[in-house]
């Protein structure tokens, strides 16, 4: 038996013994996600138990070094652990932008002091982070951002506005792109800086979306004073950090399209449209759409696994996460179009108890942002065309 076989056995046994049954069921609502942070509360006792057991093992961030609160697993072990979690339908014990976005950037660009300060608190779910990237006039053209950071002794003084800041109203800290040199070319005067959301001069305002929910905020900075030691990487070279982080963000968003867990689409559809004598969906066109969708979903999941394996083998292209982001988000939108079609008029109720407060139509509307946030589908295709295919122009 290889070391990895042994690791798989041990992991399977540990998960079996430690993952509460309630944490192996598909998530039903936003409350089922545990985000951590100074003020977050657990929505249930099993959620707390599961989180704490995983945290103590370092498995909220299995592949991070143990000195920063991680599990110290290598790439193959991490893959095995995720496969074993998926096999029993185990939920993520902790979801955070600290894990999926800031962490990888700090591991690559952070100083020792920054890593020691921030990574263990991310791993332990103590601090919840938000991302200060987009601005009212800097969406797809992110590098044209205008939030200013003026040098003042050992500090920067930050003034400006961000938008589409996910959960800024719940976040404890922000990782933020600011302009530290207004005279340089647009990509060359940007810095990547960290600060506490309780700093004087920070305010947030939730934005009501078409789903009737407010996952995004406008975030305002009015002369916010931040020590220069909070810059990650080199001053004015923040775009490098920003792009690296975006690769991780895109990989995360593309993963939102892969949901092997939960009830299969075919069964969900059977509930509402019915089946014929052979057990086939009565709506043959819908049946075909679901089958094509599942073919593409299975293929995407193989591609996601292959992307990790290629990276491990040193054969991956750094822009490939843009390809996955494009496909994963378009696929997730397709999933929800199918779910809405399968649900028919039952999927149109917006407020009733019966419809869990319109959970399905609200989730459907939320997915429309997938191909916008983190870089639009059109931006992703442009990146693939230029950086991978080396097509001319721009």
């Amino acid at each position, binding site marked *: 038996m290889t070391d990895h076989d042994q690791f798989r056995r041990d992991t399977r046994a540990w998960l079996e013994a430690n993952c509460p049954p309630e944490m192996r069921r598909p998530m039903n609502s936003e409350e089922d996600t545990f985000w951590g942070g100074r003020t977050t509360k657990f929505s249930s006792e099993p959620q707390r138990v599961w989180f704490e057991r995983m945290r103590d093992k370092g498995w909220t961030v299995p592949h991070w070094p143990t000195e920063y609160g991680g599990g110290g697993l290598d790439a193959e072990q991490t893959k095995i652990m995720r496969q074993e979690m998926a096999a029993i339908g185990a939920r993520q014990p902790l979801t955070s932008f600290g894990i999926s976005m800031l962490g990888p950037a700090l591991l690559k660009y952070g100083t020792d002091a920054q890593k020691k300060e921030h990574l263990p608190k991310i791993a332990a779910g103590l601090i919840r982070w938000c991302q200060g990237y987009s601005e009212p006039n800097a969406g797809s053209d992110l590098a044209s951002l205008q939030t200013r950071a003026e040098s003042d002794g050992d500090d920067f003084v930050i003034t400006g506005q961000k938008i589409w800041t996910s959960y800024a109203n719940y976040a404890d800290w922000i990782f933020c792109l600011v302009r530290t040199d207004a005279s340089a070319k647009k990509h060359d005067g940007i810095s990547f800086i960290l600060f506490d959301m309780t700093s004087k001069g920070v305010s947030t305002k939730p934005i009501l979306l078409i789903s009737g929910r407010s996952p995004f905020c406008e975030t305002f900075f009015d002369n916010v004073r931040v020590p220069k030691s909070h810059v990650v990487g080199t001053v004015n070279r923040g775009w490098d950090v920003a792009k690296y982080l975006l690769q991780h963000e895109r990989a995360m968003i593309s993963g939102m399209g892969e949901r092997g867990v939960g009830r299969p689409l075919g069964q969900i559809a059977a509930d509402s449209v019915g089946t014929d004598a052979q057990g086939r969906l009565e709506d043959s066109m819908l049946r075909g759409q679901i089958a094509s969708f599942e*073919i593409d979903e299975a*293929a995407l999941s193989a591609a996601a696994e292959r992307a990790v394996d290629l990276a491990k083998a040193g054969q991956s292209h750094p822009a490939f996460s843009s390809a996955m982001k494009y*496909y994963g988000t378009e696929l997730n939108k397709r999933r929800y179009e199918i779910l809405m079609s399968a649900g028919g008029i039952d999927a149109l109720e917006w407020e009733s108890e019966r419809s869990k407060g319109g959970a399905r139509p609200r989730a459907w509307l939320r997915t429309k942002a997938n191909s916008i946030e983190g870089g639009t589908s059109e931006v992703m295709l442009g990146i693939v065309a230029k950086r991978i295919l080396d097509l001319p122009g721009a």
Partner: protein
Amino acid sequence: MPLVLTEEQSMLRDSARGLISDKAPVSHLRQLRDGKDATGFSRELWRAFAEMGFSGLLVPEAFGGSGLGCVEAGVVMEEIGRNLMPSPFLSTAVVAASALSRGGSDVQKSHYLPKISDGSLLAALAIDEGAKHRPLQTSMQAVRSGNGFRLNGNKAFVVDGHTADLVIVAARTAGGAGERDGLTLFLVDPKSKGVATERTAMVDSHNAARIVFDNVEVDADGVLGEVDQGVGLLEGVLNIGRGAVASEMVGLSEEVFGRTVSYLKERKQFGKLIGEFQALQHRAAQLYIEIEITRAAVLRALQTLDGDFEQAGAAVAVAKARAGSTATLAVQEGVQMHGGMGMTDQFDIGFFMKRARVCQELFGDANFHADQLARMKSY
């Protein structure tokens, strides 16, 4: 198992790529077509395949082969697809070799497999009867007679049927069209009395035949596997063939795509390279992404066939469906982006379009496999 090729598999790819791109580029197919070659492929190249060990790739070592797996067969098929090489590799070295080694008696294996491995025996699988691939709809009759059976019926789209020394035929010994029980596979010598083979010139200039069986006698030794219970063996063999054709389509798609992207970087209109136009950039990027995702799905299917054969059905359905759709998209975008040049016979792109259409039908198209997947998942 990581979803990347091992070092040995990469080396195999390099040697297959070297041989095939050198000896059988697309111009080789064009020559065979224009010369109305009676064989439709190069026997000399098939000998070279045997010398390289390709013809015996899936044949167990005990019978003179190298005992490799579906991933390795896929590696060779991909290079065949890249160059549109007409070759008995699929019919003989993949499909027939699998059928014999999975379903054959010791006598059958000892008789046929060494000859497949050394390149001296060509074989074909005769399965389709109607316009679409529907294995369970097989209605060709095999009636018991004396020590054996008598076969009556028609087969179409028998790949390499015109040159086969051995034809593996699916027929009904019981049950009716649509039923799983009652299918039996037979080993038939095409020189037997009552076998009439018509070579069918196909749109892709590759090789196929229609075969009519008129009271053809096959003795009991000619049964491959179990009487009435051939469906499991047949489906397994078809899945191996589907994985192989999916690999061929990955190679084909990637080659068309590579040629198309090169053209976008050469061709000028409106004073610009056409690859500067965003409309074309985005379509090229979409096609790239489709191909990469399909490549992963196909490798997943081949690895599953090698590692967990009985559970490979869903992965194979996904791979064949994806490969069919991706190849169809690739060749359409290829012709469109080449403009009028893409419509000319002088330009190679059309050959890829024709082959993709045939590969799409071979062993079930994307719709067939979507339906299969839905059945497997009970909806």
